[in-house]
């Protein structure tokens, strides 16, 4: 059988059905920001500028790079970013 696209909520329905995004931090102080280059052309230009601006504000920045933009990030890379950063920014377009 095919799985229906409707499920019945098993909870007390105290939170919205649409899951809220994680709350954004009030500021960047004390946080580590990851910059993920997905290996798309000139993404590094955008991320380099962000790097400069963030470092100028005293924010800790870590740089990461996906081997190719055509595939999802390797699990090891995703786990490393999650373990090392509080926030991540990735440049998606050319």
């Amino acid at each position, binding site marked *: 059988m095919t799985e229906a696209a409707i*499920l019945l909520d098993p909870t007390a329905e105290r939170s919205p059905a649409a899951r809220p995004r994680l709350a954004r931090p009030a500021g960047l102080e004390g946080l580590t920001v990851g910059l993920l280059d997905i290996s798309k052309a000139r993404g590094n230009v955008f991320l380099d500028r962000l790097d400069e601006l963030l470092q100028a504000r005293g924010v800790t920045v870590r740089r990461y790079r996906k081997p190719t933009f055509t595939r999802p990030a390797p699990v090891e890379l995703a786990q490393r970013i999650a373990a090392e950063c509080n926030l991540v920014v990735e440049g998606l377009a050319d």
Partner: protein
Amino acid sequence: MSSLPDGLIVIAKRDCPTCVLVEPLLAQLAATGLALTVYSQDDPDYGAGVAGRVHDSTLEHSYRLDVEIVPTLIRVAGGREVERTYGWDRADWQRITGVAALGADLPAIRPGCGSRSLDPDVAEGLALRFGKVRLSARQVTIGEAEDPVEACFSRGWTDGLPVVPPTPERVLRMLSGTRRAPDEIIGSIPPDLVPCTVEKVAINAVMAGCLPEYMPVVLAAVEAALIDEFGMHGVLCTTMFCGPVVIANGPMSRAVGMNSGVNALGQGNRANASIGRALQLVIRNVGGGRPGEIDRSALGTPGKYTFCFAEAEDSAWAPLHVERGFAPESSTVTLFAGEGVQGIVDQKSRTPESLARSFAACMRVIDHPKLAMAGDALLIVSPEHARVFIEAGWSKARLLRELIELLTLPADEMIAGAGGIAEGLPPSLAGTKVPKFRPGGILIVRAGGTAGLFSAVVAGWAASGAVGSTPVTQEIVA
């Protein structure tokens, strides 16, 4: 569809050989000038030559006409059904249609086939679309590319293992396992004390992997957890280990195939596994009791996924529900706030006196050998061990009395500091004897495979009794 078209109605499907057999008769009937409506469940061309031919593509007509077998022939007069037959029965068809020679060259009787409206999953879908049942739980639409099992994980609905996605069809099928109305509120689930409907229990029972026939047991287990003495809120939020252990008694546990024998406390039996899990999922999802939030257990216990089994009742030993005041023919669940399973290995005792001493020695270590009147004990006696008592004429009650006696201990060994261990009873008890367990704090059940001179004890929550949790028993009603 409050009123039916007068005349004859035939419901059929091409996929059914008997429907194919009677198909030529339909044009004959139409030619006589009788008002005839033919509903085809599959092939829109079935009943060619009949003006009143309708493709029942949604099966709404089949559902509303309550068709179980095709072909079904119905005669309607004055907007009401007056007669019906199903399959091919020549005499019936001739009488109902009033056409004396109808199908004279066909065999006298041919059985029909099942109506498509009763196909698995189809029936529930039709009931949801066209029936009276209304489910009230919020519908959560998941993305087309989203795996439903993963969707349940990402919404935080699972205990860490996959759940069966609770589709409306599955929930409706689960509700068929109880006579209770979906909107009946069975109580408020801790820790959030949210009113819980039968429907919400059914949703979580689907997710846990239950069959509909388990619903009465699941409902009784949830109701038992809500009895005040059980203290479900505390059982959940304690930093200690316990979770609700479900012990089933009576004919219902056998009817649904619960395991009381080989590996009774282990994996592999759907009823045991899913009934215990359904209770835990209700606490998690409806009550909001999640580990790390209100559930503050330091270590937890594997039984917090599921811990549910049936007693292997023996006519020579009063089963737990009878000991607790219920009729032998009744079915019950008893909830015990229990920790893990500790084995009792005694392969040498052949007398009840020796074996009872073994049990007492092993039960003495519950919580700590130097603590008393803290946690209750659930003693699970295997058939080979039970036989030692039964053959010597010891009832369960006799064993219980002997254990209480054997577990009345010299406090001097147990007071704080004794044996170089700081933990222990208050020094004021020095020189006295103390009962290891509070009155009523030992439950005995018989369960397990028939080979193995091993029993087990499950420690209760160290806050057993009025201060925390007292075992409770709830009757299972269909």
